[in-house]
C-alpha cells in the first residue's frame, strides 16, 4: 500500500475545529455533520478540517495528545520498553504531518512536536527492523504485532513479505519435491 493511501485512511479520523461561519446540518453519505456555528467547537473528519482551514474558515484544535509534555512521556516509555507501546492515535504520524503542514499556526510549539513525533517514529521503526530481523533468523511462522500502526507496517510490509516469499521458495526448492512441478516451464 502506498503511504498516500494510508494517509487517505487517516483523513477519516475526527478532529475538532472551531468554525468561523454558520451552516446547517449537512447529510453526507458517511454520516451527518454540523450544524456549524461560529466559535462553537465541532468534530469533523480530518479531510474536511484541512480543507476548511485552507479556505481560512476554521481554526483546528490539536488533539489532546499533541502536546509536548505528553509526547515526551510517550517517547521515554517507547525508549524504555522493548515492545511497542500503545500510541495515542492509530494514525499519529499522519495526523501530526497533516496538521503541522496545514495548521501549524493553531498548534503551540509545533517544531518541538514535530521533533518528538519523529523521535518516537524512529525508535519504533528501529524496533520493527530488529524484530523483522529476528523473525527471519528464527524462521518463525507467526508474529504478533500489537500496537503497530498501519503506516509503520506499510513502511516495510511489501518488501518484507516479498523477501519472505523468496526465501521460502529458495528453501523449499533445496529439498527436492517429487516431480518438481515448478521446473516444467
Amino acid at each position: 500500500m502506498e503511504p498516500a493511501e494510508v494517509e487517505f485512511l487517516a483523513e477519516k479520523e475526527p478532529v475538532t475545529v472551531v468554525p468561523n461561519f454558520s451552516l446547517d446540518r449537512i447529510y453526507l453519505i458517511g454520516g451527518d455533520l454540523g450544524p456549524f456555528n461560529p466559535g462553537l467547537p465541532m468534530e469533523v473528519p480530518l479531510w474536511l478540517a484541512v480543507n476548511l482551514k485552507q479556505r481560512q474558515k476554521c481554526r483546528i484544535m490539536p488533539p489532546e495528545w499533541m502536546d509536548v509534555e505528553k509526547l515526551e512521556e510517550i517517547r521515554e516509555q517507547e525508549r524504555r520498553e522493548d515492545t511497542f507501546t500503545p500510541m495515542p492515535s492509530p494514525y499519529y504520524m499522519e495526523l501530526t504531518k497533516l496538521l503541522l503542514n496545514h495548521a501549524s499556526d493553531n498548534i503551540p510549539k509545533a517544531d518541538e512536536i514535530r521533533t518528538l513525533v519523529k523521535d518516537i517514529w524512529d525508535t519504533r521503526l528501529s524496533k520493527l527492523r530488529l524484530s523483522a530481523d529476528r523473525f527471519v533468523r528464527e524462521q518463525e511462522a507467526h508474529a504478533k504485532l500489537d500496537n503497530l500502526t498501519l503506516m509503520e507496517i506499510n513502511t516495510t510490509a511489501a518488501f518484507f513479505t516479498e523477501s519472505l516469499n523468496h526465501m521460502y521458495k529458495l528453501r523449499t526448492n533445496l529439498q527436492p519435491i517429487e516431480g518438481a512441478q515448478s521446473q516444467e516451464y
Partner: protein
Amino acid sequence: MADELELFEQGSDAGSDEVLLTPAELIRQLEEAWLNEKFAPDLLESKSEIVECVIEQLSHMEENLQRAKKGDLKVSIHRMEIERIRYVLSSYLRCRLLKIEKFFPHVVEKEKLRAKEDPSDLSPEEFTFAKEYLENTEMYLKNVVLKHMPPNLQSIDLLKSVPLPNLDSFVFLRVKERQENILIEPETDEQREYTVDLEEGSQHLIRYKTIAPLVASGAVQLI
C-alpha cells in the same frame, strides 16, 4: 435549497440476505473489502452488492447536487466526499481487474468448475472481462508465435504457464472477532506445529493460507 441536499438514512438493500445498512455502514464495508482485496494474494469473492449500492448512493447524491446552487459551501463538501468514495470504489475495482489479468486462466477455470449453487467469485462484468481476456491472449499468442512453430509445438496450456496466486505468502491482519486454536505449520523440519489464539483487536503476521477462510467470513481484516 438546503432541503434538496438532504439524504436521509435510507436503508440500503444489501442483496439476498436483506440486511438493512445505513449508508455510513455501507461505505465502511466497501473500505474493508478494498483493503482485503489489496492485501490478499488471490482474488476474493466479489462484493458486487456493496458496489451496486455505493454506485446508487453516489448517483443519488450527484442528482441532488445537480439541483443545488453552484458555489455553495455545502455543495463543495458533498463533492469532496463523493470524490473520496469514488476513489475507494475505483481502486477496489481496478485492484480486482489487475488480479484477473494476472491469474486469468485460473480465474476462468475456477468459474467453470464452480457448482451452480455456489456463489461466484466474479461479478458478471468481471467474468465477461476474464473470458475475453483469455480469448484475446490465446488469439494473440497464436497469431504472433504459435502458428509459425513446428506442428508439435503449436499448443500451449495457459493453466500451466501462468503462475497461480501464492497462497503461502505472508499477510498482516487485525482480528475483528476472537478466534481460537489457529494451527501454525512449522517452517522448518526442526520446528513443531503449534496453535495460537487470535484475540480481538490484536494484529498478526501470518501465512495467508492459514487464515484465508477468516478473511472471507470477515472475522479478520487484512492491513
